[in-house]
């Protein structure tokens, strides 16, 4: 009786309750994040092909990666995709948000239509659709050839343009950034525009002097989020181009996957682990860089 009461009392203690409520996350973090990460950190210093036990080889994987042409290629492709795709996406999101900020009876419908691609864009169905649309005989060339007759047989999956098929796909999904811009736009104080108007500022000036500075925190948030996303693109590139042609769309995550699960030959899990860790360091650096740049251009009140 005495013991039961004390257990109940203990469970009622705020500290104890705090840990009990956190318990799912603590277990999940240990089991599905920390242990795998530590394990892969160790294996990144090993030669490991899954079939045979891992053998410790020190820094060899990291040194090999440094001399690996495909690694540099994958890094270049990923940076190209991120540096072009992300700003385009954020700019599109901002422009469309400015256009849709006006309240009309149809605004809800418009918002849904522009946002829908983001909702289903990550699906295998859209990846398949994209591949089919950009085939030489697909709908894109069929429509373009009405205006540009030379486009009838243009090969979008050539070495130069294949990456653009993927960039167009990511820019198409600007919807969630757009919604974030829309809600930020709503919070801008109307009086600021009235004051600007009294000072004789036209719409164009109002945008550059009032709207844009006040939106910079939101631009920043979207840039960080979308940059990280584009560094991690996997499904769409795997399904649409599979890195082809000539590795011109070999995204970093795809390269990691290939090393771990090659079509032929032995798996190089140790090497893939090292690649994953390098990716993590790169993403952390990029994020840190973005945060460092924050004070230079983001407006704080």
């Amino acid at each position: 009786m005495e013991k039961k009461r004390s257990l109940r009392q203990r469970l009622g203690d705020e500290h104890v309750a705090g840990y009990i409520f956190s318990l799912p996350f603590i277990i999940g973090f240990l089991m599905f994040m920390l242990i795998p990460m530590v394990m892969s950190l160790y294996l990144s210093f090993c030669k490991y092909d899954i079939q045979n036990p891992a053998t410790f080889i020190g820094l060899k994987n990291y040194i090999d990666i440094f001399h690996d042409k495909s690694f540099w290629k994958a890094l270049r492709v990923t940076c190209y995709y991120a540096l072009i795709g992300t700003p385009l996406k954020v700019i599109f999101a901002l422009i469309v948000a400015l256009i849709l900020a006006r309240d009309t009876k149809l605004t809800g419908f418009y918002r849904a239509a522009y946002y829908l691609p983001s909702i289903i864009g990550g699906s295998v169905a859209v990846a398949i659709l994209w591949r089919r649309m950009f085939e030489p005989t697909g709908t894109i060339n069929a429509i373009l050839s009405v205006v540009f007759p030379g486009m009838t047989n243009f090969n979008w999956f050539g070495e130069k343009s294949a990456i653009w098929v993927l960039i167009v796909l990511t820019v198409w999904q600007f919807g969630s950034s757009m919604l974030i811009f829309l809600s930020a736009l709503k919070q801008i104080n109307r009086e600021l525009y009235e004051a600007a108007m009294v000072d004789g500022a036209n719409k164009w000036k109002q945008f550059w002097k009032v709207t844009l500075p006040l939106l910079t925190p939101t631009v920043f948030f979207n840039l960080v989020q979308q940059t990280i996303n584009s560094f991690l693109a996997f499904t769409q590139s795997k399904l649409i181009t599979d890195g082809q042609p000539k590795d011109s769309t070999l995204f970093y995550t795809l390269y990691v996957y290939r090393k771990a699960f090659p079509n032929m030959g032995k798996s190089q899990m140790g090497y893939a682990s090292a690649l994953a860790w390098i990716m993590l360091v790169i993403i952390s650096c990029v994020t840190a860089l973005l945060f460092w740049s924050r004070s230079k251009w983001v407006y704080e009140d």
Partner: protein
Amino acid sequence: MTKKRTIGAIVYHVLVLAGAFIMIYPLLWMIFSSFKPTNSVLPTAKQLLPTVWTLDNYRTGWKGFMGYTFATFFKNSFFISILSTFGTLVSSAFVAYGLQRLHFKLKGILFVLVLSTMMLPPQILMIPQYMWFRRLGWVGTYYPMILPYFFAIQGFFVYLIMNFIGGVPKELDEAAKIDGCSYYGIFFRVIFPLIVPALITSAIFSFIWRWDDYLSALLYVTKPEMRPISLALKLFNDPSSGSDIGATLAMSTLSIVPATVLFLIFQKSLVEGIASSGIKG
């Protein structure tokens, strides 16, 4: 003046509508093409609406491949997505309550760890988790695609629900406490019913993400009868399966029906959910 304004409004709507049409054109093309006779899909790629409407693509597509119909793949996807979403909601809300309302020593560190999981997306964890699950003997089972979600591992959802709980007046907690409610009672009886909007938003995102999850299926599903729709669709489209374009487009169309329907029903709460996650960030 008013006439000028009306013309301006018409121009505005025409342009915005045209933009919306371009945005959803790929989807419209997929849907309408799936009702065209399969051999006319590419020759009439320019034309949106079918001249002859047919359901043949749906009939041939549904038969699937290697002895399994699409009914199996859909059933698998529903099973995985619903279970993992259920786990995500319950565990994330539970953890979010603790981190938002209770005071305890390691709370600060735990909160940082929750946020850090957003920096550790599946693509980074792909190799580490695969090796760990392999050791646990989970490859070839649904465990890797369901169990982790019962442990609040997606910081995004914990954070989203935390913000929402933050908006619930503390007086409600206090009143329940005076009435003799424990912290657990407060969570289940007071907080849980009040955060339903946040749970709906989370449920939709979680469901769609699990439904679309191709990477996990690729890594962990080894038996044909266990394939979810994402993996099945990919294989169905491969040239080795015959790759009938009409049937592929028909099954692709069916595969986006759940996400689209959820989106259309809960459009408003989704839009608000996205918007508020942004403001706080």
